[in-house]
């Protein structure tokens, strides 16, 4: 049994200079076989394992991560959490997740620093004004809070913004979701890992899946850098690398993997208190609790696995930031990085069964899956355990690319969601 985290445990551990904290999760060697193997130790994979153990009684399971927990997009993203997507199917999915975010810290006894500081989506063109208003109506019909802001309202929310956008990017208005915000990304991975470990889930890091054993169309095991593991159920939750693993299993996906990048500045005093997204110019900004400006940029124009991102994209984003927030022109950037995102043609994820029996897919989240982390894992666990899509997952089946029932969320997604 793990000691609970609390103000008292903090005080107690301070007395021993914080040197005696219990390890948050065990790191066992893999067993010979499991009832299910989740490939990918990002947020979505860990939440899947959490609900498999908690709600479906599957405790003989493992999460296999080739690097370190959260070292993929989970630990590289700009942590925007919101649910103001347009179509009913997406509203159901992202709002399910947002409700779980609201109780996550308490449920995990792990502070994920979920901060409902509100998210603004700016509109820079007449076309964006129209689609934003349409989306607000659609959100409200689905019970999702969403409000239109005139330019003066935007200025009231974000006093440092230049509504003229330097003459290039005028702000014509925007939407605001007040329940939306940010969270501490690493804490999400660590909190779920700790909870999984406590329920007996094996968390295995530094172990890459390199192939599958498939007999008569049914998966029977995975081959890893730490040896062979028998299992009849495999959840693929590897984000940008989903195509690589699909290739190993003998099928293709409608996914292109591309670097998406972000930057943080030197820390400054509180200056921007909400999240402001500008889809048309690929610039997103918020301020971390440490005071750094967290800036999200666009995806590279071409496929790539480099976790880096190309220069022209960085330049475009920073140029737009400087037009919208002239006082940031003298800020210095501290770090820049990229994550490999799995973009789908309709900017919606793929959740459900795959062409191989026993292999389940959770991918295609592209530039915007962090916000969905708890909801995605919840419905995916149900899908894996029962070998049929959870009702919220059903519309997001791989088969939609054959039937043509795409769920186009490009407008809600922006470039990076």
């Amino acid at each position: 049994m793990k000691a609970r985290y609390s103000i008292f445990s903090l005080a107690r551990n301070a007395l021993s200079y914080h040197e005696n904290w219990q390890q948050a999760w065990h790191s066992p060697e893999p067993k010979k076989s499991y009832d299910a193997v989740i490939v990918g130790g990002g947020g979505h994979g860990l939440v899947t394992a959490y609900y498999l153990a908690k709600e479906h009684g599957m405790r003989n399971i493992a999460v296999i991560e080739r690097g370190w927990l959260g070292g993929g997009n989970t630990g590289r993203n700009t942590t925007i959490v919101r649910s103001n997507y347009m179509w009913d199917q997406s509203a159901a999915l992202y709002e399910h997740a947002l409700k779980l975010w609201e109780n996550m810290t308490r449920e995990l006894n792990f502070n994920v620093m979920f901060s409902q500081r509100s998210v603004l989506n700016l509109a820079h063109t007449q076309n964006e004004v129209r689609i934003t208003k349409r989306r607000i109506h659609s959100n409200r019909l689905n019970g999702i809070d969403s409000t239109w802001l005139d330019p003066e309202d935007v200025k009231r929310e974000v006093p440092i913004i230049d509504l003229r956008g330097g003459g290039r990017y005028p702000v014509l208005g925007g939407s605001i979701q007040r329940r939306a915000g940010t969270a501490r990304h690493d804490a999400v991975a660590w909190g779920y890992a700790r909870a999984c470990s406590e329920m007996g889930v094996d968390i295995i890091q530094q172990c890459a899946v390199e192939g599958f054993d498939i007999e008569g169309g049914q998966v029977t095991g995975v081959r890893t850098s730490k040896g062979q593991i028998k299992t009849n159920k495999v959840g693929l939750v590897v984000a940008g690398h989903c195509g690589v693993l699909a290739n190993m299993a003998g099928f293709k996906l409608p996914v292109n993997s591309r670097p998406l990048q972000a930057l943080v500045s030197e820390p400054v005093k509180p200056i921007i208190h909400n999240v402001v997204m500008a889809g048309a110019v690929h610039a997103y900004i918020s301020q971390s609790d440490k005071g750094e400006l967290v800036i999200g940029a666009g995806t590279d124009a071409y496929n790539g696995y480099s976790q880096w991102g190309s220069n022209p994209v960085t330049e475009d984003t920073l140029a737009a930031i400087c037009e919208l927030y002239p006082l940031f022109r003298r800020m210095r950037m501290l770090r820049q990085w990229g994550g490999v995102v799995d973009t789908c043609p309709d900017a919606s994820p793929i959740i459900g069964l795959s062409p191989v029996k026993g292999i389940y897919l959770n991918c295609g989240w592209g530039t915007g899956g962090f916000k969905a982390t708890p909801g995605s894992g919840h419905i995916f666990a149900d899908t894996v355990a029962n070998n049929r899509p959870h009702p919220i997952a059903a519309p997001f089946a791989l088969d939609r690319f054959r039937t043509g029932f795409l769920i186009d969320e490009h407008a809600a997604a922006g470039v990076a969601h």
Partner: protein
Amino acid sequence: MLLIPCPYCGARTENEFAYGGEAHKVRPEHPEEVSDEAWADYLFLQKNTNGTYYERWVHAHGCRRWFNLVRDTLTNQVHGAYKIEEEPPKVDETTYV
């Protein structure tokens, strides 16, 4: 920043170009006759290789011609460009996990 060797203009920086995705995909001759599976395959499914990738580019802000490129998608090393009607250059293909 990639330096892309346009077969018509020579090496230029990547922001002169636009991307066309996986190369050597053949559009079905009679789309109205193929199955939904085959059409979805042509339209949506991607090799999305981590490693040596054959891809289409267009020199949008230059000669505006389409051509193919062989590039390593992990290291970004460009192995060479070739005209649409040409055979790809011989390269040691690599893929990564």
